[in-house]
């Protein structure tokens, strides 16, 4: 077999090997990025929204947040009129719900709630003397110019 044929034989195996090597390298990089993103997401899941009170203080809303005066709650409110465990805001199937928990009243946009209610951006939630403005993350926020920018700093993933 002449050297030309030998070279042809070598190239015959070399070319698919190189292609496979590049493919595997790209797959490896992609898998590594996927795992890193997954880990980052599990550590700090992105908030589903935020609550802002009259003083301008912002509370981040997780997937399931309990509001109340007790320190065991996810969002601790220091209002005297707020019960120990007062209300819950959670997300289910892309909808955010507000659920009163205590016998104390929960107001949504001024109306007293008797049960669960859907929340939208811009709603006002009243617990005790505290009025909280709701801002939800999600592709379509609506709202004024100041709103989305502030909420965006809470929203968004670190992927």
């Amino acid at each position, binding site marked *: 077999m002449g050297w*030309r044929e030998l*070279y*042809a034989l070598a*190239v*015959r*195996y*070399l*070319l*698919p090997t*190189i*292609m*496979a*090597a*590049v*493919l595997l*390298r*790209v*797959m490896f*990089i*992609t898998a590594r*990025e*996927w795992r890193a*993103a997954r880990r980052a997401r599990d550590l*700090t899941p992105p908030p589903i929204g935020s609550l802002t009170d009259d003083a301008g203080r912002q509370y981040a809303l997780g997937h399931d947040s309990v509001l109340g005066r007790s320190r065991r709650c996810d969002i601790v409110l220091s209002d005297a009129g707020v019960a120990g465990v007062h209300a819950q805001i959670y997300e289910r199937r892309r909808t955010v719900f507000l659920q009163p928990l205590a016998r104390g009243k929960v107001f949504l946009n001024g109306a007293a709630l008797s049960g669960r209610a859907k929340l939208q951006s811009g709603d006002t939630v009243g617990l005790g003397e505290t009025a909280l403005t709701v801002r939800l993350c999600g*592709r*379509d926020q609506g709202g004024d110019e100041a709103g989305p920018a502030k909420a*965006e*700093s809470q929203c*968004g*993933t*670190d*992927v």
Partner: protein
Amino acid sequence: MVFLLIALFAVASLTLLAIDGDDTDIWAFVMAGCIVAVLAAEYILFPVLFRHGDRSLLLIINTLAVLGLVFQYRLDPWTAFRQLAWFIVGLTVMGGVVWFLSRWEGFEAGSWLYMGMGLALLAASLVYGSTAGGAKSWVRISEVLSIQPSEFAKVTLCLSLASVLREQRRFTGYLPLFAFILLSVALLVVQKDLGAAALYYITFLGVLMAATSNGWWVSAGVLGAAGGAVAAYHFFDHVRLRVSVWLDPWSLPDTGGYQIIQGLEAVARGGLLGAGLGQGFPTRIPAVRNDYIFAAVCEELGIAAGIIVIAFYLILVVRGAFIARAARDSFRSLLAASATLMIAAQSFIIIGGVLRMIPLTGITLPLVSYGGSSMLGTLMLCGILQAIAQRNGIDRQSARQAKAKRVTQGEGP
């Protein structure tokens, strides 16, 4: 490092082509040198110009393009050099797209502009077009230069889809987009560019699903497409021919079925590792330089190479999905999704056609096929992806900086 592998691929294969035959082909070495130079330039410039660009995407682009260049050289050295020129132009345009998209804000509002431009481009090829290979989609610019406007209309389609679908609207808000899609598809069908028509519609349905998650609408769209296909079958001869040739090419072995039969036989001849670069008979296949390049790759480098090529397009989809998911607003996210979907759908339509899984349509294999407009169009779409990836990286960085600032100022995370 991986760039070295790609360069090695080019050098090894072109050297083989150089020594194959009686005389040593100097030009093959010239081509190899040019490819290595382009790769080196990319390797140096890319991290400098686009800090957060998607390097893996660049690797995929280069692997496929180099594979294409090697095969174009094997088929016809002159077209290979033309392809190389278009590749360099395309890379520059890709950089230009990234720069352009990063300079200005407000791209999301131009939906009417994008739709208008898209229709104008498609109408231009209808009005000014000359027929080549059964499709009336080429516009002659000069003696040696003709372009395919529908390739650039792909970019305007992505922009239109993203700018309209980024916000939830009432149903009437979507009607202009639906009209635009129907008109575009109709224009393409009239020009007998069925592959592009299918590509546009599939991309539209995919992005619609991604944007609205409305299975009903997408199902309606699929049914509409099925109805349209049946109607096309009844009204257009060339559609009937394509379908009957797809179902049984051996019934028309010398006319309609010739291309498909040659392609299938070539793929079969290749076996696992192929007949060897330069050892096959790809020139028997009509349109082997553009539509049927996949069959040539399978014949000479084997089914293994064919599977790897398909895998590359799949990885491209995955990376495009990453970019789309990491985008901060819906416009950029949908733009990335539509660009990804266009490239992926195009490759699967033509590979499926070559392998006789679906009826054959006249579109090119992105980056591998010969075709300046196709190369430009695909690289523009890749430029869109890189631009969004770049922006994602910048956003991620500023979010990290803002977070660090908040923590040090005691405001809490």
